[in-house]
């Protein structure tokens, strides 16, 4: 148990060291490329983990990596950061755009300045690049996990855990966020298609407030004594829902599936508060982002889309050595 905090502390130190190392190690045979990574927000374990993967690839390839972003997930704060990064003329730009439409023009400016763009985790326009259609197909590649698929995997894992029958619902942040919308849609569609014994109740939106998510799960539980499972579409949705069950005396009885795998969720899996986590592979996204940029800069062709994977983490495998790399940490 104490190991967790030690790992956390170590991770923090390592991230700093890795950044320093990667920027000081230039390739002897020529000019070192500089690649900028702009996350959706800087204060999120997912993007911090993506940075870790990107830093590993940068170190391996002798690339300078710049990591700069805004503290919250919105275009108004991200665009000034993007402009500042463009002004410093990196050789390539990796970005998780915070809006499908509002980031098109600012990213077009990067391309006009001669900086190739790759989007990671989120996309602009329709997310299908290099097709010659529309005004937002100019990024070279889109590297991300398929959130709809993630939602489907959550549905399968939850259905298995509750024996294919009972009531479930999605605890979600707010409507209109592409990634969480896709997780929800994937979850609900898969439940309807493959598990006729399961009833999906109304989605509850919590504004990313764990307290609200907890109140909602208590309320749904009070209304539906046969509630069997909850899918928390992000950290606070899952954390709050699980706490509501605990407060309501149904902890462990009603199964909770969480999307993403930060330390907090992993801790909750160990204590049994949360049953299953669908972990994305943000480090993989960062690694392939830098690798794709490097390939492009050295004259190789790169695929217009790279899909990264998922890992299902539960109590049976949470301590396995092979799982540790999927836990979000810097």
């Amino acid at each position: 148990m104490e190991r967790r905090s030690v790992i956390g502390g170590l991770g923090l130190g390592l991230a700093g060291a890795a950044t320093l190392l990667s920027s000081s190690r230039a390739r002897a045979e020529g000019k070192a490329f500089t690649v900028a990574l702009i996350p959706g927000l800087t204060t999120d374990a997912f993007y911090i983990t993506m940075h870790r993967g990107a830093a590993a690839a940068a170190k391996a390839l002798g690339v300078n990596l710049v990591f700069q972003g805004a503290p919250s997930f919105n275009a108004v704060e991200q665009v000034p950061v993007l402009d500042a990064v463009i002004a410093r003329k990196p050789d390539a730009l990796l970005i998780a755009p915070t809006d499908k439409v509002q980031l098109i023009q600012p990213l077009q400016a990067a391309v006009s300045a001669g900086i190739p763009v790759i989007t990671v985790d989120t996309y602009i326009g329709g997310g299908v690049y290099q097709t010659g259609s529309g005004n937002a197909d100019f990024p070279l590649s889109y590297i991300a996990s398929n959130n709809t698929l993630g939602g489907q995997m959550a549905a399968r894992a939850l259905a298995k855990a509750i024996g294919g029958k009972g009531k479930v619902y999605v605890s979600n942040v707010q409507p209109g966020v592409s990634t969480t919308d896709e997780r929800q849609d994937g979850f609900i569609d898969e439940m309807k298609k493959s598990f006729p014994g399961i009833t999906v109740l109304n989605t509850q939106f919590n504004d990313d407030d764990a307290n609200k998510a907890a109140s909602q799960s208590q309320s749904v539980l009070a209304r539906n004594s046969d509630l069997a499972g909850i899918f928390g579409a992000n950290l606070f949705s899952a954390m709050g829902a699980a706490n509501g069950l605990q407060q309501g005396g149904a902890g462990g009885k009603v199964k909770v599936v969480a999307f993403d795998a930060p330390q907090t969720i992993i801790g909750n899996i160990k204590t049994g508060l949360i049953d299953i986590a669908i972990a994305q592979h943000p480090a993989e996204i960062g690694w392939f982002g830098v690798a794709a940029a490097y390939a492009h800069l050295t004259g190789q062709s790169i695929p217009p889309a790279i899909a990264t994977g998922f890992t299902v983490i539960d109590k049976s495998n949470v301590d396995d050595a092979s799982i540790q790399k999927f836990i979000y940490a810097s």
Partner: protein
Amino acid sequence: MSSALPTRSAPGNLRGRRIIAAVASARAWIFLLLLLVVFEIWSQIAYGSTFIFSSFNIRSVAVFAVAPVLLGLGQTLVIISGGIDLSVGFTMGLAAVIAAHVANDVGAFAGAPIGLLAGVVVALAATLIPGWINGLLIARLRIPPFIGTLGMYGVARGAAYLFAGGTTVPVDNSWLTYLGNGRILGIPVIVIVTVIFVALVHYLLSETQFGQYTYAIGGNRQATLRAGVNVRRVTIILYMLSALTAGIDGILYTGRFAAGAPQAGEPLLLDSIAAVVIGGASLFGGSGTIIGTIIGALIIAVIQYGLVFLNVEPFWQFIAVGLVIIVSVLVDQSQRRFGGGRQDE
């Protein structure tokens, strides 16, 4: 606006005026009562089950209300004095993160109880710093509260994220999680802790000289100064108290969710201000009560919980809370107008 109000000086309307004043002063209670009655009838008709006569529901609403109530306590004091504290949300997050770290680190070698104690002490001491700076900015440097605490909102936010390493800090301390999720005689511990602080702050505001000064500063700062009250000192203490209640909120959050989250209080700031306003405090200062704020927070909690319980489309929750705020302020305004109130225009 007031030209269309012939009733103002009509003597025959004395009774009507009294009724309006009575309704206005008890409006939070009336709202809460109406809500409960409507939800109870609705629940009986639609589902054949009770809403209020269920200990499960009561407990759930109480647990939900804890976070906005604690933020609202300090916020009420500050608003009565004519100020506002926008920084409480992230002061709460800062306390949550510090409590988590200290409880983990101290608890690792000194055991869970000492870890909890250290976490509480260090987190609360830390929250006094932003509170004190807020007070200094506003009382000494005469910076408008809205701007001063907005600045501190950013500083506390950044500090909380820095301490947390940009993410949430998992907590491993059985005493802290008991504080957050345990029960004594069926009552959640966090509710008991909250009731104790409600009583303390209520006493401070209604029974002490300090409380009188707080109202006086909000009512007329200049006159209070001339009366020889140390307005600066009282103001600084008010903002420190506001930070302190936010800190307690953060510690309870950390215990409850077994995680110190920097953004824990971000969505709660507006709920806390709404609770204070629905509870009858004026944003111009000089009026308001702790009990009013508690009722305000309970109204928000009952709406949030009840509409989910009644299976209403989620977006109606926002509309319902928004309507209650508007109607509440309207009642307040009409009372001031008809009652020849002080601060109309």
